[in-house]
C-alpha cells in the first residue's frame, strides 16, 4: 500500500491529481490511500480521506510500503520514526498551495537525508514511483543535537 498525505490545513490537489494520474497510467495493482484535506479534486484511482485521526493514521503509516507527502515536518519526522521511505513534493506559495515557501526550504534541508526523496514535479515523481525498489528507509536517531535540545529544555523548565 502507498500512503499519500498532504496535511489538513490547506488542500494540495496538484499532488493528489498527479498521483491519481500515475495510478491510472502505470496500471499499478498497489492500493493507494490518500489523505487529501479539503480537496475539490475527485480522485478516480485512490481511496481518499479528508482527514485521518492520529490513531488511524498510525495504522496506515505502519501498513504502507512508502509515503508520498507534501514537504511537511510532521510527515517527514513520522516517516523517519517508523522507518518508511518518504517522497516529498513541496508546496509552492506562487500556486496558492501555502502561505509561504517554507516547504521548498524544508525540501532543500532534507534533500540529503537518508530515506527522504525530494521531487519537484510530475516527471520527477513518476520517475521515483516507477522504480519503487530503489526507495530505502531512513531512521530517526537520537542525535547529539537532539540530546542537547532535551537537556537544554529540561534545564530551562526547571529554572
Amino acid at each position, binding site marked *: 500500500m502507498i500512503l499519500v498525505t498532504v496535511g489538513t490545513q490547506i488542500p494540495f490537489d496538484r499532488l493528489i491529481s498527479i498521483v491519481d494520474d500515475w495510478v491510472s497510467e502505470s496500471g499499478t495493482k498497489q492500493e493507494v490511500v490518500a489523505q487529501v484535506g479539503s480537496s475539490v479534486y475527485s480522485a478516480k484511482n485512490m481511496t481518499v480521506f479528508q482527514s485521518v485521526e492520529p490513531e488511524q493514521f498510525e495504522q496506515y503509516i505502519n501498513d504502507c510500503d512508502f509515503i508520498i507527502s507534501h514537504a511537511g515536518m*510532521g510527515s517527514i519526522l513520522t516517516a523517519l520514526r517508523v522507518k518508511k521511505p518518504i517522497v516529498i513534493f513541496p508546496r509552492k506559495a506562487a500556486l496558492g498551495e501555502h502561505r509561504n515557501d517554507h516547504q521548498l526550504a524544508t525540501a532543500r534541508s532534507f534533500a540529503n537525508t537518508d530515506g527522504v526523496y525530494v521531487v519537484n514535479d510530475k516527471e520527477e515523481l513518476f520517475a521515483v514511483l516507477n522504480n519503487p525498489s530503489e526507495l530505502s528507509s531512513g531512521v530517526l536517531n537520537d542525535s547529539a543535537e537532539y540530546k542537547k535540545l532535551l537537556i*537544554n529544555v529540561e534545564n530551562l*523548565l526547571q529554572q
Partner: protein
Amino acid sequence: MSKNKVLALSSPGGHWVQLCRLIPAFKASDVVYACTYSKASELSDDDNYYVIGDISRDSIQRVFSVISGIVKILKKEKPTVIITTGALPGLITILLGRLFGIKTVWLDSIANSEKISMSGKIASYLAHNCFTQWENLAGDRIKYIGRVI
C-alpha cells in the same frame, strides 16, 4: 519543593510531532498538553490533555473561541511555564501567558530552515525565551539550543 507545571501546546501536524519529541525533557515536571486532536495517540491515558480549537491566519474568525479555551486551561491548571512549537495558537498562548505572568518558551519549527516563521519573529518579542532549530538563524533574540532530529 513543589514541581513546576508546564503547559506544552501546539498546532497539529508537524508542530505537534515536534512538541512530542520534547516529552523526555518534561519528565521532571508536571505537564499539561494541548492540541487540536480529539485524542492524542502519542500520549498515555494518564497524561493530562486538553483539546483546543484550531486556527490559522486563514481562519482568524475563530480567534475568540480559541482564546477563551486557552484562558480556561491557564486558569484551571495554573502552569508556571508555557512551551510551544507554534503556530498561531502557540503565539496566542504566549501572549496570554505574558498577561498571566507565566514564563513562556517558543521553539520555532524545524521546517523554518532558511528564515524564522512570522509567528516566531513575533514570539521573539513576546516570549521570555525564543529558539530556532537552525544554528545559522540564531541572533540576538532567537537562540539555538539543539534540534528535534
